[in-house]
């Protein structure tokens, strides 16, 4: 049995190592100073897809990302790790999209790809932290969804067994194909880039990246596996009214700078009396228990 898997990935500014220049005066992210990276939980999602590829030979993994042409870097990173092909969904019409417009555009691209068994994405992206896009895509495709997945255990008789991470433990669920799964950061880390794949795919590109490089264009043309798809709103037959800013009900009203202030630490002596006092206090205010 082989599967057709679509992995949703996003190129995000690396907000994990933020310096003082990370925000602009107006409170928006200064993308120029933050390196663009593969959204971490999308890498967890990719790993789950690559594991399925190992378990079920013949499985294909297609990476789909929405963003400017430079988001092709995310596709290349995926190819280096074992994905089979990639598509960048790129159009000015998609600019300014909130989660609703984003999931609309991605859903249109997924429909265009067609013939899919599984759509796997990260739980959320580190720039927006909404965790909405995966579930919204499932709704738009009218597919069941499993969120907070930690491990895709097996696919058998048209059903997928998934372990989910919950607040107080784990839960194993079974769901029918086709299915949308969003993967939690506690899942296995993604495998490293593979030396052979890096050498094979390093010249992979979307057409607009290499538009002015005749030599590279000819090189890619002779090797179809190096061509990364570059789809527009027209390619995926998207309704422009539902795309980008036009399709986004979310409007930013204002941005506020919030500075966290640390509360004073309290010191508890290491004796039964004080420990018991602390435990009682924590139970009383429902921190534990």
């Amino acid at each position, binding site marked *: 049995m082989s599967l057709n898997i679509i992995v949703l990935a996003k190129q995000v500014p690396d907000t994990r*190592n933020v310096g003082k220049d990370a925000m602009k005066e107006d409170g928006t992210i200064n993308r120029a100073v933050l390196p663009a990276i593969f959204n971490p939980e999308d890498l967890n999602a990719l790993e789950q897809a690559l594991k399925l590829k190992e378990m079920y030979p013949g499985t294909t993994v297609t990476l789909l990302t929405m963003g400017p042409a430079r988001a092709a870097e995310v596709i290349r990173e995926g190819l280096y790790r074992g994905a089979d092909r990639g598509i960048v969904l790129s159009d000015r019409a998609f600019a300014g999209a909130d989660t609703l417009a984003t999931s609309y555009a991605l859903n249109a691209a997924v429909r265009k790809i067609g013939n899919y068994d599984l759509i796997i994405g990260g739980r959320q992206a580190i720039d927006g932290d909404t965790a909405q896009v995966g579930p919204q895509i499932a709704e738009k495709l009218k597919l069941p969804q499993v969120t907070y997945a930690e491990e895709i255990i097996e696919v058998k008789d048209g059903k997928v067994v998934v372990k989910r991470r919950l607040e107080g433990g784990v839960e194993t669920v079974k769901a029918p194909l086709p299915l949308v799964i969003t993967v939690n950061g506690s899942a296995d880390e993604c*495998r*490293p*880039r*593979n*030396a*052979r*794949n*890096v*050498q*094979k795919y*390093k010249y992979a590109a979307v057409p607009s990246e290499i538009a002015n490089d005749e030599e590279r264009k000819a090189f890619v043309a002779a*090797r179809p*596996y190096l061509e990364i798809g570059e789809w527009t709103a027209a390619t995926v037959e998207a309704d422009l009214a539902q795309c980008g800013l036009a399709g986004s009900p979310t409007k930013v009203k204002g941005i506020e700078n919030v500075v966290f202030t640390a509360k004073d630490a309290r010191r508890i002596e290491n004796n039964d009396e004080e420990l018991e006092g602390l435990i009682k206090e924590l139970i009383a205010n429902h921190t534990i228990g």
Partner: protein
Amino acid sequence: MANFYTDNEALKLHLNHPMMKKIVELKERNFADADKFDYAPQNFEDAMDSYDRVLDIVGEICGDIIAENAEDVDHNGPRVENSRVIYAEGTKKNLDTCRKAGLMGMSMPRRLGGLNFPITPYIMAADMVSRADAGFENLWGLQDCAETIYEFADEAQKEKYIPRVCAGETMSMDLTEPDAGSDLQSVMLKASQKEDGSWVLNGVKRFITNGDSDIHLVLARSEEGTKDGRGLSMFIYDKRNGGVNVRRIENKMGIKGSPTCELVYKDAPAELVGSRKLGLIKYVMALMNGARLGIAAQSVGISEHAYREALDYAKERKQFGKAIIEFPAVAEIVSLMKAKLDASRTLLYACSRFVDMYKIYDDIAKERKLEVEEKKEAKFYSRLADAFTPLAKGMTSEFCNQNAYDCIQIHGGSGFMKDYACEQIYRDARITSIYEGTTQLQVVAAIRHVTTGTYLDWIKGEAEKQVAAEDEAVKATLNFMTQQYIDAVEAVTGVNDPKFLDFMARRLVEMAGYIVMGYLMLDDTQRDSSFRKSLHVFVNYGKAEVAKHADFIGNFRPEEISDYLYAE
């Protein structure tokens, strides 16, 4: 989030050495694989870009995974269950990661599943892996046993075993026995040929690194009744066939993640490699030369780790109101550590390039007849590789021990506690000057290149190169050291007593080593001025060491040797 490749400018300097162009073009046979394999380079720049990218992967894995696991692996280590070795959890994860990253069989040709990398970038990977965890380097680095299969086994054996190594199966070289350590001529493990022509092995091997590997190269006595090296042959034992059990693993001082096994062979089926009787005199010598280069890389990696730990601590630790590195006595130690590290690394990569050149020519010679010029060049580099390998192994492993010692010294009392990485570095470093031939044995291999002039010829070639005006003074110093070396060699060989030469050999080899490393660093400085400081520190140090040996040799009366030699 550390990357041991991108945080270390020295690696790029050595990767981009001018000699690489020729090495790559020969290794790639003018890029003949370009249309056959989708991951083969199109041209020199493409190949170099690929090495750079792959080393970036290695650097990331080393920084994020192997280094992170090192302490845990050191504490928990491997164990034996039911005669099989179980690696520490961290080791398993390291190996799995390296397999998935396709970092096994890096130097093997593509048709057998490898990356067809020259030795030089492969050794760079070994350098980084060793910095991350010296013990893990042993397991990962044993992939270079595949070189021996590639060079000497028949085509069927190559096709059977090398793709398995490239896919991630591990290897071991089973040479040492309880009564055969440095003296491998005494190997007793018995190889017997059955009526159908197949071979079985019986006996015991000891101190076998990664002894429960998937594919073993075994040195065994195939010629009954013989007692010396001429009765030994090389075999492949495939673990899938069974017949070899692990009796125990050693409890070692360092490199604890690397299982050192005692093996019992009981009618273990094996395949003969190459010709009978050439096991020790040809194949093991080749195998050992590769392994020695690997230990030099391991030494450099450990030196790097020691230097970084020392520098960080010296900058952080405050005494008397300031960071201790601000005290000249401390700063001198750290700067000398850096100089020894840079000197070790430049010698390592000079040696790697020589090995690359002669090995590639050897390989080409199997495909076609070499041109007269090529033959000459092959011979030239073969001799240099032969001279530089023991020099590199000897010097870098001694420097690595010195750096490990100094790293603890910088840490003061804290360094003596088990809380800092320096104590593991110290324990891990200790083996480097012992295994794959002790420093004393490296001297035995190197001394003939002192007496036949291999080192001096190379030094004279370097002395003819132009250097920047500001480096003329250093060059004059190196020239002066060379004269002292020439005089010392004459003084020792003039006595015309082999015992006297043996007695003085280490001093002479070290003198050559300081001068060779000095010239290599001078050359590095011409390409990257950031090495100039280190060059000065090293040449000052080397000059004093050379003078010390010159003084000892110059004032030593040959008859005094009796004071040193043991007599009941």
